[in-house]
């Protein structure tokens, strides 16, 4: 057998880390991306990356990082991978620094760290206001170096369509399409890493994600037998500025520095906001959460905005009255300018309005999917994960690995701020190491893939293309995508109920049928974006079904998944030791016994088949409910 080779799908942080690790070990890598890899969604992460360096005199500890991550995710993440990730975080930061990443500095020239949401210590490394961009460029430069040495080959503007599975169900390569020539071709590989990012576009345009974050690649793996896990957990960021094209993140810092959220008390009040008297404004966060007011946690804020706009009908603006005001105009302009300059500039640039003189208009937006492709791990003797185990980050399809936002591994039911750049980088590295072990363990007499398999699969994909090109129905994929986003936002979003989830699942089936006959509106055989879009949309609808089914089955509130009918509230004003609180704790334990488990979705012709897996709680067993009071 010649030197085994690897295909990596996706060139964000996860994919590039995996590429580097595999190529460094001497195995050739072919990297597939829909676009030039440095345009990947990793660049959008602004805030930072968590790693305990304990350089701020706060006695920060790795143990605390582990606990914060586990509790933030309401115990739903398997704990050994979380432990290993937090332990390796400082080493990752040092490696990034050696790559030349322009981390912000202290006066002494050391890496600076700042405070981020959900934690008590300064633990977040950052590079100005563009941390994700800087981290991605660090690995992008290294991959370019390996490319110039012939160790990596990039196929940019190629789209992964399907896996090549041999008779034993082992992944032996992929079929991909050149997005310019539309050529469909099979590529053999001894292992495949999918690092295709998140699926925020299910909620488009009310999503902060890039337009290519469709989840289509993960969905294609799912359709071929890879399990999805915990797909129902989706984080919504409470304050995003609405656009026709996307929602752009407005940092929580705007509330932290004194911003107030409000709507007019009168439904449909069309007066300019500055002319509405104080007495006629409803500062609902301050009324709902007297202790925290406007700085209440992300998920609480998102739900409150949802209640006010969707249930009380008090939203402002067109578009169904969705928006609320985030108001800074009462604050001192010089102070706010110095504290929030960069993020207010974003608002000015994209909304064309100065937030110092006009209240901003915001709405919760789909931000990050905690769920994704199920991946394995091997627990080590010390309670972390076994280094170099081929099981780490392996999907249930042999030879197929997943890393980055498209996997489900680290964030449980909710993700902490600045943990996503960490998990993307760490999981990419671990997946790369696991693939190297997998390749070394392959039998040297393993037969080649039967030639009929790629031929059949290429022909099947070409048939799909031909049918899409021929369809002449009334809809276009672009219109159906809008309906998908609106449906998911309305019924599978911030606040969920079973009747709505049932109807959402039915409506998804209707969308699927309509898409089947939708006309592309063009028949070009060169760079036909409508064809690629329509194919992606079909996979998105499949994935939306997984999210919806998972949400329907899970009758509880956990992290980002919120179903008020099943809420177990903390009795007000009570704490550990109080009989009411202990009774609550008992209910909380009973709920955990039923629902503290991983949702597994398996593809069938009739929709996702759900089952559940135990969560590995060996590091920090749940005895304390999450309580941010």
């Amino acid at each position, binding site marked *: 057998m010649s030197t085994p080779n690897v295909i990596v799908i996706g060139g964000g942080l996860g994919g590039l880390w995996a590429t*580097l*690790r595999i190529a*460094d070990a001497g195995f050739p890598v072919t990297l597939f991306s829909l*676009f*030039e890899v440095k*345009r*990947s*969604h990793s*660049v*959008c992460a602004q805030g930072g990356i968590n790693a305990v360096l304990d350089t701020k005199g706060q006695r920060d500890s790795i143990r605390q990082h582990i606990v914060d991550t586990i509790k933030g995710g309401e115990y739903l993440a398997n704990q050994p991978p979380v432990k290993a990730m937090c332990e390796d975080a400082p*080493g*990752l*930061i*040092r*490696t990034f*620094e*050696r*790559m*030349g990443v*322009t981390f*912000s*500095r*202290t*006066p*002494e*020239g*050391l890496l600076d760290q700042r405070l981020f949401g959900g934690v008590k210590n300064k633990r977040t490394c950052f*590079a100005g206001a*563009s941390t994700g*961009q*800087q981290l991605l*460029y660090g*690995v992008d*430069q*290294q991959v*370019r*170096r390996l490319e*110039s040495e012939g160790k990596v080959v990039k196929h940019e503007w190629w789209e992964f369509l399907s896996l090549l599975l041999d008779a034993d169900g082992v992944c032996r390569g992929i079929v991909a399409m050149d997005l*310019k020539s539309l050529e469909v071709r099979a590529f053999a590989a001894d292992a495949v890493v999918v690092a295709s990012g998140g699926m925020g576009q299910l909620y488009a345009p009310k999503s902060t994600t*890039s*337009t*290519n974050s469709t989840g289509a690649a993960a969905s294609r793996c799912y359709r071929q037998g890879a399990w999805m896990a915990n797909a129902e957990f989706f984080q919504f960021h409470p304050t995003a500025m609405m*656009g*026709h*094209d996307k929602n752009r993140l407005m940092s929580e810092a705007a509330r932290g520095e004194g911003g107030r959220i409000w709507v007019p008390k009168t439904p449909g009040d069309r007066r300019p906001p500055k002319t509405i008297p104080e007495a006629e404004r409803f500062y609902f966060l301050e009324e709902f959460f007297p202790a925290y007011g406007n700085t209440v946690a992300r998920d609480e804020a998102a739900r409150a905005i949802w209640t006010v706009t969707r249930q009380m009908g008090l939203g402002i603006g067109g578009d169904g009255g969705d928006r609320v005001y985030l108001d800074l105009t009462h604050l001192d302009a010089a102070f706010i300018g110095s504290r929030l300059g960069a993020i207010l500039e*974003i608002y000015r*640039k*994209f909304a*064309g309005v100065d937030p110092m003189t006009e209240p901003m208009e915001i709405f919760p937006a789909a931000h990050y999917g905690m769920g994704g492709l199920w991946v394995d791990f091997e627990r080590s003797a010390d309670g972390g994960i076994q280094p170099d185990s081929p099981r780490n980050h392996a999907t249930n399809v042999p030879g197929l690995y997943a890393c980055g936002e498209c996997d489900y591994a680290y964030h449980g039911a909710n993700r902490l701020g600045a943990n996503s750049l960490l998990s993307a980088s760490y999981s990419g*590295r671990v997946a790369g190491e696991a693939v190297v072990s997998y390749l070394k363990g392959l039998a040297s007499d393993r037969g080649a893939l039967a030639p009929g398999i790629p031929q059949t699969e290429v022909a099947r994909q070409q048939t799909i293309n031909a049918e899409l090109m021929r369809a002449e129905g009334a809809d*276009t994929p*672009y*219109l159906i995508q809008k309906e998908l986003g609106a449906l998911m936002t309305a019924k599978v979003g911030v606040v969920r109920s079973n009747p709505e989830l049932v109807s959402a699942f039915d409506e998804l089936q209707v969308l699927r049928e309509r898409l089947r006959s939708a006309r592309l*509106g*063009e028949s*070009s055989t*060169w*760079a036909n*974006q*409508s064809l690629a879009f329509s194919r992606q949309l079909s996979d998105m609808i499949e994935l939306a079904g997984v999210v919806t089914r998972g949400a329907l089955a899970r009758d509880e509130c956990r992290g980002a998944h919120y179903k008020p009918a099943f809420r177990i509230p903390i009795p007000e004003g009570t704490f550990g030791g109080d009989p009411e609180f202990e009774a609550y704790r008992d209910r909380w334990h009973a709920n955990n016994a039923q629902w503290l488990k991983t949702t597994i979705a398996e593809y069938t012709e009739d929709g996702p088949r759900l089952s559940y897996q135990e969560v590995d709680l060996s590091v920090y067993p749940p005895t304390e409910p999450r309580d941010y009071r």
Partner: protein
Amino acid sequence: MTEQSIHLRIRRQDRSDSGPYWQDFAIPAHADHNIVSLLMALRENPVTVSGQRVDPVVWEHNCMEEVCGACAMLINGVPRPSCSALVAELDQPIRLEPLPKFPVVRDLLVDRRRIDQGLKQVKAWIKIDGVWDTHEGAPRIGPAEWAANYLYSRCMSCGCCMAACPQFGSHSAFLGPAPLAQARLMNAHPTGRYDKAERLHAIMGDGGLSDCGNAQNCVRVCPKEIPLTTAIGELGRQTTVQMLKDIFGPR
């Protein structure tokens, strides 16, 4: 054309090797449209002002926060990212053309591979032993030096500077401002400077630094306000020193 519509003129091209042509569109106005959202609205119903149904316009977009660099094009004659080009601030008819100097793939989609080739040519990377932890970070960098470097590390390879540069194009081998600025960035890094001579030699020949005509267009169009001409000036001094070293040997 009514008051309530946005007038768009788009230069289209069906294939890399076919000729360009113009089409006009009227799109219902929204106060907060940018060029990407406008093109998204257009692709839902691509009908020209004369009522002709045409292929949806092809263009590239991803982050829509002006950080991925994908969506740059020529808007009313100026190269810039289209996601941050607000319709309310543009004169109509709004003219959209593919980013010049780069080969057109289709419509507004261009092939910017030459930026990547330039980055390879100038070896825009830090040589590290491997992507494992060496239990040591990089040497310290003072805040002032950091601030100067950070300006350059925000380059997103959108290609606007190259599009505006009279020296860059299919007629010349000139690397263009973006890769040059990255050479400056890497040369400033405490371990990146180990390979400074190699990078400087890469820009001392044909298509290198001396091809810059000092038109200063690049700094004027850079959406990230990267001081590209400052970088080119610094590299000029570095190459002069390097030339002397090459002649007289290191002291």
